[in-house]
């Protein structure tokens, strides 16, 4: 105590702090050594932990590094690879690098790392510990609540999964029954049609006979007329089918033709490029062609790209100073081998050259074109994916009969939802759509329709002539209705199959994420993360794909989205979503640490794991155990 007082007089700083600091500085023999390691240093001759050498007790913490691994200098800076332990009584003990010992910077809250007197480090462990304990307590509370929520979620997921599976199996059986019914109806319909046909023929025969009789009676000649009549009347459906096919082929042809035209057009414009460097519009057309080459872009999209760029370019030209789109086209030109810049204005030239280094401008310009394009092609995009049977060059205006199906698919992408909330279902339409199937989807429903169909089927009297027109119409309508129901069920089945094949976590804790998106607004961008689907960055009406669902990583602590939109001269965009325990599902942070590589944090109860609580509680306990003594001293 005498020594303490002497020094405290000379330092004349806070006595209390000093005492607590001095109390926390152990003797040379134990300086910087963790309690669990103290026994290692008991003997008179100690081995370097790497086995390279032995040293005596005098050499322990004697400011000379004997063991390259740092065994002999836990309490000094002598060994570069050493570690220093500060007890930090009242807070969490800290093991730090020996490079921090006596470097003039207070690293340990108890100040034990700075003991050579060059700086005085006040003991802040109690304060810092208090803050840390509170934080830790909060964290534990979060985890505890989170675990409850998680349990509920897991339970819900379990039910939902079971429900989905049940639905699937039910749908499958419904599908089977419905298929049969539809088949029956179809047969019925065909029989009706056959009957009608026969009836019609009969009627015609009758008419003919009558006419014949009449003719005979009148002695007039009508035969050729009749035959032509015959042909026209025959199989009108078939004809219309034919017609449809023609129309489609027409579409196809014209598309192909357009494409050809377009290609030649491009070539022409390219020639122009070679001669006329001011022809930016032609060039952007060229660029579009180059970009879509080999990709899945349809002809229609190409035109959109051209248009978008045209607009951009003309805008840039009129709205001086030029915008970045203008640049991108120049840059594209730059990328091409032709490199003459003589036709450019001074400013254009400056921007062009600058863009080589930045690429940013050019990239953004390019992105904007992409986004514009995406906005335009938004719908086609989906169509294209889902109608493989159709020629992909199909015209934009081409309307498909089964609009329902299309809507469903739209809903799946969740693009049309402008939900203000952070998280929402991506599938709402979907649900309502199927409400008639799923909600009332009891066996009674099936019974009912089976009943209906049977009634219809039975009600129809085949032996009655003429065919009851309203009954026939009923059969047709029923057929149409049920086949449409069937296709709905089939699409639902395929969607459920699609969903159920994903990995939803150990406890299927991420099951509810399938139908949800999470949003976060950062400056001008809104980020949308739809697990198992995709992630995007939205600015106004344009959207950039940050990535498509890839997988979970780091044992369900990270969600990966990859293969997003291409970056100018960079990688395809990608997003890494780090998950952490929180009471709500919330996208709390999103960042782009490397160009086009995004990182986000999503807080979710799914990450509130029970086993982690014990760990945290242990940590808190450790912090608390040191506390009373330090506190008592004060």
């Amino acid at each position, binding site marked *: 105590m005498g020594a303490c007082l002497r020094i405290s007089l000379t330092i004349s700083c806070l006595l209390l702090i000093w005492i607590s600091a001095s109390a926390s500085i152990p003797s040379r023999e134990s300086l910087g050594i963790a309690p669990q390691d103290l026994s290692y240093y008991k003997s008179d001759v100690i081995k370097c932990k790497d086995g390279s050498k032995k040293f005596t007790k005098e050499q322990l913490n004697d*400011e000379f590094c004997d063991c390259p691994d740092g065994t002999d200098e836990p309490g000094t800076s002598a060994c*570069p690879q050493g570690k220093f332990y500060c007890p930090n009584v009242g807070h969490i003990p800290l093991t730090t690098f020996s490079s921090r010992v006596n470097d003039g910077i207070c690293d340990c809250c108890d100040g034990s790392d700075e003991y050579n007197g060059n700086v005085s480090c006040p003991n802040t462990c109690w304060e810092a510990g208090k803050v840390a304990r509170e934080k830790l307590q909060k964290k534990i509370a979060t985890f505890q609540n989170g675990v409850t929520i998680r349990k509920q979620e897991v339970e819900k997921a379990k039910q939902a999964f079971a429900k989905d599976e049940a639905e699937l199996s039910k749908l499958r059986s419904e599908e089977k029954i419905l298929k049969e019914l539809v088949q029956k109806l179809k047969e019925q319909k065909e029989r009706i049609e056959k009957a009608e046909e026969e009836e019609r023929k009969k009627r015609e025969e009758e008419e003919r006979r009558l006419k014949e009789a009449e003719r005979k009676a009148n002695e007039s000649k009508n035969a050729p007329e009749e035959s032509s009549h015959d042909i026209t009347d025959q199989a009108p459906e078939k004809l219309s089918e034919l017609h449809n096919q023609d129309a489609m082929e027409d579409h196809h042809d014209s598309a192909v033709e357009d494409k050809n035209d377009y290609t030649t057009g491009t070539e022409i414009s390219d020639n122009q490029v070679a001669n006329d460097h001011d022809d930016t519009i032609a060039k952007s057309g060229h660029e579009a062609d180059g970009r879509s080459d080999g990709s899945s872009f349809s002809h229609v999209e190409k035109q959109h790209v051209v248009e978008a760029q045209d607009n951009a370019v003309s805008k840039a030209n009129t709205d001086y100073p030029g915008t970045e789109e203008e640049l991108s086209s120049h840059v594209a030109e730059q990328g091409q081998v032709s490199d003459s810049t003589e036709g450019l204005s001074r400013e254009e*030239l*400056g921007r062009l050259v600058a863009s080589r280094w930045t690429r940013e401008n050019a990239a953004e310009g390019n992105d904007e074109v992409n986004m514009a394009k995406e906005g335009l092609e938004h719908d086609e995009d989906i169509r294209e994916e889902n109608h493989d049977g159709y020629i992909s060059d199909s015209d934009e205006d081409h309307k498909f009969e089964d609009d329902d199906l299309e809507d469903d698919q739209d809903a799946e992408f969740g693009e049309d939802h402008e939900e203000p909330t952070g998280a929402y279902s991506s599938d709402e339409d979907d649900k309502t759509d199927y409400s008639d199937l799923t909600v009332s989807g009891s066996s009674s429903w099936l019974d009912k329709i089976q009943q209906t169909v049977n009634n219809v089927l039975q009600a129809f009297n085949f032996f009655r002539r003429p065919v009851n027109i309203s009954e026939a119409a009923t059969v047709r309508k029923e057929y149409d209705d049920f086949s449409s129901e069937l296709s709905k069920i089939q699409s639902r089945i395929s969607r459920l199959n699609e969903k159920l094949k994903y990995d939803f976590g150990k406890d299927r804790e991420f099951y509810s994420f399938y139908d949800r998106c999470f949003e976060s607004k950062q400056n001008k961008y809104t980020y949308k993360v739809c697990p198992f689907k995709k992630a995007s960055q939205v600015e106004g009406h344009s959207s950039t794909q940050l990535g498509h669902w890839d997988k979970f990583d780091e044992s369900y602590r990270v969600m990966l989205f990859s293969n997003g939109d291409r970056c100018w001269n960079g990688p395809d965009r990608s997003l890494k979503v780090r998950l952490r325990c929180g009471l709500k599902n919330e996208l709390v942070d999103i960042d782009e640490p490397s*160009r086009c590589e995004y990182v986000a944090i999503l807080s979710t109860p799914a990450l509130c794991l029970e086993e982690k609580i014990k760990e945290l509680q242990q940590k808190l306990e450790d912090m608390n155990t040191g506390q009373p003594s330090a506190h008592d001293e004060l």
Partner: protein
Amino acid sequence: MPSPADRSPPILLRVAVLFLLLSTASAWKKDEFRNCDQSPFCKRARGRKPHSIPSLSAADVSLSDGAVSARLLPSQPLRQNTAGDDPEADRDPSRILLLRLSVYQGGVLRLQIDEDPSAPRRRFQVPDVLLPDLDDHRLWLPRLSSPAAGSSSSFYLADGFEAVLIHDPFEIQVRRKGSAEPVLSLNSLGLFDFEQLMVKKNDGEDWEERFRGHTDTRPHGPQSISFDVSFHGADFVYGIPEHASSSLALRPTSGPDVEHSEPYRLFNLDVFEYLADSPFGLYGSIPFMLSHGARSSSGFFWLNAAEMQIDVLAPGWDDSASPAKGRIDTLWMSEAGVVDAFFFVGPDPKDVLRQYIGITGTPAMPQEFAVAYHQCRWNYRDEEDVAAVDAAFDEHDIPYDVLWLDIEHTDGKRYFTWDRVLFPNPKEMQGKLAAKGRHMVTIVDPHIKRDDSFYIYKEASEKGYYVKDAMGKDFDGWCWPGSSSYPDVLNPEIREWWAEKFSFQSYVGSTPSLYIWNDMNEPSVFNGPEITMPRDAIHYGDVEHREVHNAYGYYFHMATSNGLLKRGNGMDRPFVLSRAFFAGSQRYGTVWTGDNSANWDQLRASVPMILTLGLTGLSFSGADVGGFFGNPEPELLVRWYQLGAYYPFFRAHAHQDTKRREPWLFGEHNTALIREAVHVRYSLLPYYYTLFREASVSGIPVMRPLWLEFPADKETYNTGEAFMVGPSLLVQGIYEKRQKSVSVYLPMGQSWYNMRNGAAYTGGISHKLEVSEDSIPSFQKAGTIVPRKDRFRRSSTQMVNDPYTLVIALNGSLAAEGELYVDDGKSYDFEQGAYIHRRFIFADCKLTSIDVRPAKIGGKFSSDCVIERIILLGLPSGAKKAVIEPGNREADVELGPLTLRGGSSLVAVTVRKPNVRIADDWTLRIL
């Protein structure tokens, strides 16, 4: 004009390659820059044959004012325009040129040739490059000797050397006294040509030049100068940066067996994605060439800031029947200016360097932190990013000293401002770094955004401080901020004004721990001819940009550096990194090799480039570690750190499109390798700082070609893969992916110790070594002592009080020597003698520390630092203890490791805790 073959390939192909080009980053834009054939002065001069043009003779040779003066007249009446193929004969009859030869202390001959003062316009002489007190060192010539019937005049040049002016045709020679064989000569080949300024006689006369849509009005007509310089007894020539090359020696650009090549071009240019091997001009220019051969070294420097093209001619280039042996002819061509040339007699390579430094100045002594590791990226986005990167260095126990902010930190590329959203509290941010002993560097470029609300722009435009265009308006060029103007830093008044802008009051948000980076000062002008300023732009004093171009960046660097000096009241050594440079830039700060790329070839090229900069005065230089453009694979990045740790200037930098590449982003293993590489540099900081001191006194660079240390060893003359760090360490880079073994030539005369394991190697032969991933081969020369600090810290600042380790590599006679220089690391007190400078001598088993400060010097600097460890390599076993005098203290001697890293084996006799103070005299005897 590009030839038809250079035009685009067929359209479809272009479409197909577009993606490729976009994704792999298009390369160097060759067509954007002039080649020799597109520059009339170069094409004309290069096409000449020896003695094919009318020669000039020296008349009225006399001594005046202690120097030789003469008039240059046509040797014979001008030939009539006999053949139409010689347009040059069509010129005005030449007016008389004035020649002056003067001699400076230490073996320097100066040749000046200019037009008669009666000429219509004075030609430009580059100001403020030669040391202001140069004339104090001029020798007063007492007499001229004219031996052979007045056909020549000779005079004293240096001990053992004389200069000779041969009268007709005129020729300058530097000779060893009493030898007819010259060391250096000018116009021996009769290629001297001097186009005199003209005045337009009528409007029909058109001197305009066009290049890619840019027109150069050339109002004073062609005004080029060209001549030949021969280096006699030379095996190789070196120097004339900046060019990227895998070869340290300058390869011939013309002559038999030389593929078609451009001359070496000296024209400061901002070249996008430059090639790793090309004579093409880059960011800086130093028209200084050195030669070296078995017999001697010499040098030639032409002080001229206009575009220069230099041919190195292979023997037989002139179709002569007997090609000259042991002589290298060179052809120097410049677009404008005067002849103001310096001949350096050597004879040792270090003499040549000292002679050059003697006229252009010694390198500035850097602050200690600047010698440590720098972390840069375009761009650390915001204060949060800065804090995170700073914290991560600590978390991974990797030291660094300086964090850099590129252009994005500014408010719209208005330098001296901060982006208010991203960097709202710049002082606080710098304060946080400073609390850990770290510094910050921000970028300040010469292009000033043309925006009246920007105070710098407004002030300069009101004062008329900008370079003017050919029409006399403020020059308007495009750069990062868009439309920009450029301060006319040729004018000393404007430099003063610029310097004021760095005061803490003026540069809001700056603190004393903030230093500066000058980029784009070639100057880069995105919409200018060759991405620079038009040659007919007008500077202060009606100087055309063509005349001053290569020195623009130099004056800007100078003004910035003086700004920091003023800011610190002359007490704080400036740190300014510049991309453009000129002869003399060493006085103002640091340079780097610009926007290199992340590939192995550029890693390799970095060494000859930095060595060449060192040979031409710029000792403090480096290359972007990792490569600026592109993403280095982890192995390349690690190898780059391992090599970069030995660059004099050690900075990692990356383009904004590249992936993040801070050292901890490539897995634990690579992080450990990079940490180790950075640690190597930090432990060698005392040695490096001592070498910087040496450079600042003598101009001998920190990083040296082998031949500078081993001038007699022919094997070393063209080594560009290995280099010396100071006199003691030899380092060999690893330039190939997954390289398993490497052949290293260790110069003769000494043996060498592997710095990793202490193994000894014989000198004078190539050793095939296994390559390990954890380090690149490095050796300590026997007979040297290297001071180290083996304790690692967060930054160099915390190492100040740490103890030293001495590594003594003994030679065959068990002797070694080395030095240690220490000062306060930041101020100029060392100029008053406030430093510690020790020489350690080991001989007869006794280590002695000797004060080598000049006896009479005042000033005081002390340090309580001690030496905690002495490692002796090559000492026969049997040492038991060490006895220290004064005090007769004993210290233990034992076997210890060479480096303090896990798994090191015990290989060297180690004195444990001698704890002798570095400030004191002492001896330590090994018993």
